[in-house]
């Protein structure tokens, strides 16, 4: 029987070598595992509570813990949480990327942990990001991680799949962020609940891996458990540039694979958009917004903080001054270094923006760049729920592309890219 990409990848990782189809529940062994502060905040205590002594070696060897949410020595509690992670990962031979190394969904693929055909499980809902590499990547809970560490496998429900085909050439000043916001705005937060998404089409193929990750990253903002993109030579080239050797096993859907729904989208109809408070699926074209004055702008997060994003921001901020407090957080230490080499950091600082070390920052509202009551902010991150970036129901957070954010920094009001 014909299979979707999800059905194939999950079958390939079945503990019992089952050929699985949507609706099945199977035990699976992941290729790689991602964790963050969820490990020290929850999983370690629960692991010890079970009486377990050792982390399964094949999990420990393929697991990467990245301390990204809590900042670098910011609060006493996070200092303790981070120290607990260091001790545990040292004792159990698990690789740790310490505070400041970067945001997990930027660092994980940079180091080659996301590859075609992989089953990736991570204790963060934006783990779906790694579907851009033709992998099945799903977010799990902290107790699920404990199960993986003890048993080496866990169960997954094999999902139905929604197919989204995007064709057409993007208009000028429109980016992959505008595409995913627009589709999520049309389809809403629960269109793909319990389902995987497969992406196809010329627009997706034309995008770089950085731009593709912005899209797959926000698959969870339409409820999806995974958002998988096709394999091509761009994926292969990216993998070959990582320190991990290429272990890819590209997976293609069968011709007559069974899709739950098929959605065709014409990218040439797009314009710059923002998500307006308080939901990522509350989407409007910037041209229909009216004047929205900003108190703060945040450019960063696992959705938009990679070198290509910084390149777009630098192009717009060059020889300009920001009119509103603007915080730029690079996605990883290596993105930051590349930005220094290319002269972007000088452009940012000459424009009057604040440049920081790499962390989740304002997106999570944990450290750095929080907004307060009555404040209005524009962010390149993925969620604008009430209180998400700090503040309360009087705080307003808009989500947009790096280009829209950079243009808006210059004008002080939400301005669609290309106006200046």
């Amino acid at each position, binding site marked *: 029987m014909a299979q979707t990409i999800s059905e194939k990848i999950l079958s390939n990782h079945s503990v019992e070598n089952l050929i699985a189809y949507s609706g099945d*529940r199977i035990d699976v062994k992941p290729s790689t595992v991602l964790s963050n*502060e*969820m490990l020290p*905040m*929850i999983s370690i205590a*629960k692991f010890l*509570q*079970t*009486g*377990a002594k050792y982390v399964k070696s094949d999990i420990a060897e393929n697991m990467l813990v990245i301390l990204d*949410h*809590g900042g670098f020595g910011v*609060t006493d*509690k*996070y200092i303790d*949480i981070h120290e607990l992670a260091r001790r545990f990962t040292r004792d159990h031979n698990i690789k740790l990327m310490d505070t400041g190394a970067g945001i997990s969904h930027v660092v994980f693929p940079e180091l080659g942990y996301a590859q075609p055909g992989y089953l990736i499980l991570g*204790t*963060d*809902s934006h*783990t779906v990001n790694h579907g851009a590499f033709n992998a099945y990547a799903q*977010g*799990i*809970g*902290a*107790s*699920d991680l*404990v*199960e993986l560490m*003890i*048993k080496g496998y866990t*169960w997954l429900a094999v999902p139905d799949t929604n197919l989204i085909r995007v064709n057409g050439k993007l208009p000028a000043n429109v980016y992959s962020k505008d595409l995913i916001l627009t589709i999520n705005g049309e389809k809403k*937060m*629960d269109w793909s*609940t*319990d389902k995987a998404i497969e992406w196809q089409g010329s627009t997706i193929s034309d995008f770089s891996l950085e731009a593709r990750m912005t899209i797959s990253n926000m698959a*969870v903002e339409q*409820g999806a*458990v995974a958002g998988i993109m096709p394999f091509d030579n761009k994926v292969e080239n990216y993998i070959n540039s990582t320190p991990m050797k290429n272990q890819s096993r590209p997976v293609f859907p069968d011709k007559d694979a069974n899709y739950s729904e098929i959605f065709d989208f014409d990218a040439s109809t797009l314009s710059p958009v923002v998500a307006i408070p308080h*939901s990522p699926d509350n989407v409007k074209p910037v041209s229909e917004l009216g004047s929205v004055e900003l108190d703060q702008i945040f450019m960063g997060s696992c959705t938009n903080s990679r070198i290509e994003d910084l390149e777009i921001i630098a192009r717009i901020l060059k020889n300009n001054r920001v009119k509103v407090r603007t915080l730029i957080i690079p996605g990883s230490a290596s993105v930051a270094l590349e930005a220094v080499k290319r002269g972007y950091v000088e452009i940012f600082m000459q424009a009057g923006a604040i440049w920081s070390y790499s962390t989740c920052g304002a997106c*999570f*509202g*944990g450290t750095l760049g929080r907004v307060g009551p009555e404040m209005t902010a524009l962010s390149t991150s993925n*969620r604008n*729920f*009430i*209180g*998400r970036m*700090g503040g*309360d*129901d009087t705080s307003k957070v808009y989500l947009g592309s790096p280009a829209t954010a950079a243009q808006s920094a210059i004008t002080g009001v939400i301005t669609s890219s290309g106006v200046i």
Partner: protein
Amino acid sequence: MIELNINGKVMKFGDGINTDVIIPSKYLELRDPSIFSKHIMEPIRPGVFNDIAKLGMTVLVAGNDFGSGSSREQAPEALKQAGFDAVVAESFATIFYRNSINVGLPVMEIPGVAKFVEEGDHLSINFDTAEVRNITQSTSMSGKKTNSFLLDKLRIGGLIPELQEFVRRNK
């Protein structure tokens, strides 16, 4: 064994309640569920933690897509710790639903439940049969039966007790 026949008074919420609303991220560093659970639902209805005991409302009823957003297991953990015996909703986000089972919080999807229940109504929920009775309004309806594989996990209190047993057996 955890009782899966649940009776209680309803506290009602709307559609699209996400995990940042259920437990705002700034409280996660507190780590101890008995402490961070005091802040549940703070962005939309401050004081819920006190209301549960004061008003005796121990069944949470919600609309569509309950628990969307973050993978934080602290969301169902906080609801359970705060005193909710069950959460029923029109629909749930995937990770929240799984996390609820893992932490031993009974959850059931009941399409139509938002119209069937008013805040303060007394509900009786049988998780084995998925029968729901609204005692206040003398009506009844059926939810979606929770998978027996998941009910078994719920009965023993969630994933960690199951893993304790696994570790003991494999010593």
